[in-house]
């Protein structure tokens, strides 16, 4: 019984750890993107609001308290970044610019890292949910009030990014 309880607690702690990882990756992106966006600002004059939108979302993200709120902000940022990508597609002269290429690479890199941390989180949730639903662990989980955790929908979709086909001009 002690062994099972400890195992469940360890699995629950692992979920917290992977959630922290997502948070770290999101923070990294919020911190790095404005700097990179500044360097390409002069090239993206037609997208004046991008920079201020990133700043707004960043401050909103800092003020979030729940997982759902932070993921909502994350979703908005991902959509915003997608618009940057599409903007670049519309201006072929930008495609060869090194700063823009760096921005695109960074967007993709952060998206990959966030996607990886979200998948790690979902795997931790799967392990935890399994550990509290199998017999006889479900009895112990019931006694101590362990509840099932929700999976996270993967926001950054690799396939969608691939459709932009950046590599054709990198």
């Amino acid at each position, binding site marked *: 019984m002690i062994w099972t309880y400890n195992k469940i607690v360890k699995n629950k702690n692992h979920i917290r750890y*992977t959630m922290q990882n997502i948070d770290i990756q999101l923070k990294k992106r919020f911190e790095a993107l404005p700097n990179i966006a500044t360097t390409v600002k002069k090239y993206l004059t037609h997208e004046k609001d991008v920079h201020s939108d990133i700043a707004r979302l960043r401050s909103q993200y800092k003020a979030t308290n729940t997982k759902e709120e932070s993921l909502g902000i994350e979703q908005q940022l991902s959509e915003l970044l997608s618009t940057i990508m599409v903007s670049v597609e519309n201006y072929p002269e930008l495609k060869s610019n090194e700063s823009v290429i760096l921005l695109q690479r960074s967007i993709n890199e952060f998206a990959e890292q966030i996607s990886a941390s979200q998948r790690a989180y979902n795997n931790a949730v799967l392990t935890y949910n399994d550990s509290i639903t199998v017999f006889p662990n479900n009895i112990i989980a019931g006694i101590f009030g362990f509840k099932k955790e929700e999976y996270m929908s993967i926001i950054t979709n690799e396939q969608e990014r691939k459709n932009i086909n950046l590599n054709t001009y990198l």
Partner: protein
Amino acid sequence: MNQFSEHFEAVKKQASTIKPPSKLRFIGSSLLVLVSVLAFIIAIICFFVGIIVWVIQYDADLIFLIAKSSFIGSIGGWIFAIIMFRSYFKDTTKFKNTSILRRDFKMDVLPQMVASTYGDLKYQFDGIINENHILESGFFSPSFLTSLKERWFFGDDYFSGKIENVDFEFCELYYKTKGVTIGGWAIIIIIFTISISFLFRTDMDLPSLGIGEDESFFDTLEESKQKRKESIVDREKVNQKAFLYGTKTNFRGFFIYADFHKSFKGTINIRTKKKFGMSKMLSVSKTMNKVSVENALVNKKYTIRATDAQVAYYVLSPTIVDAIDKLSTRLGKHLSMTLKDGKLYLIAPMNKDFFENITINENNISVNTIEDIQNDLNAIRDLILALNISNRIWTKA
């Protein structure tokens, strides 16, 4: 490719003259063993019958003569059968190692075919991937008993260069060991145990085993290499098995070392769950974290462990996981991979010998066509493409 026709015609001509040893020799030897066993049984029966007859005071000379003759015949039969078996297996091994104008093919024909298919790809017929890369991959970490053996790698058909923007090295790899097998150690331990009991009974001192006197009890591959310098390195490509002592082929297949398209620090081991000859060699470190991916088939076929789960999921994107699934369908589920510090190491055991002008079958030698060789060459490109690592859109320069 018509310039190679002359070579293949000459090979075909020679191949038609080479035959495997007759199966009758094997059947004959087996029959001889059977007759020897029967003769031995007859000898034993006659011996006991003779004793009984002699006890009841009848003339048993004839029965003893039959027993004696049967026994001598049995021993003679055994000796003759062993000689016949040895001769048969020696000839079979010789047949399996047949080469026809191999040097001409590897030195003249194949390099031209490689150049016409891949341009500036480097090819070396007896080359091998840098041994450091092979060891870094972690596929060939020896167990305790294996570390006591002589161990060596040798390669064949080494390719290196760039395909579809991917830097890679490829070779057929053989990993062999020579020394006492598990069976051999079992016998040594039994003899040793018997000796110990004998020694205790006679109140004698135990001999020193030497363990602990030498700090480096585990033999390193370098030391193993030094030792074998004095002897000729066995480069036999035929699968070898050792009973109590001898040379054993632990791995025969291909090895790919490639630059991965993402930059990362850490190790991810993807190991086949299939138990076979390499199972011990491929054992994964239990200290690494187990990782499950979204593809159920990949989870079923492979054990994935990583130094860090975040890195593992970053490296094993859904695209790469699908690529592993496709590769395992094509190459068989025995393939294993290591992804370490931005590099990819892949091994797949194979019984087929690639890039040869002949294929040695059970009963004959068939000559490969130019198309067969071309297919082998195309397989390298297919493999690199299947790995899906050519799309370098990430942070890696």
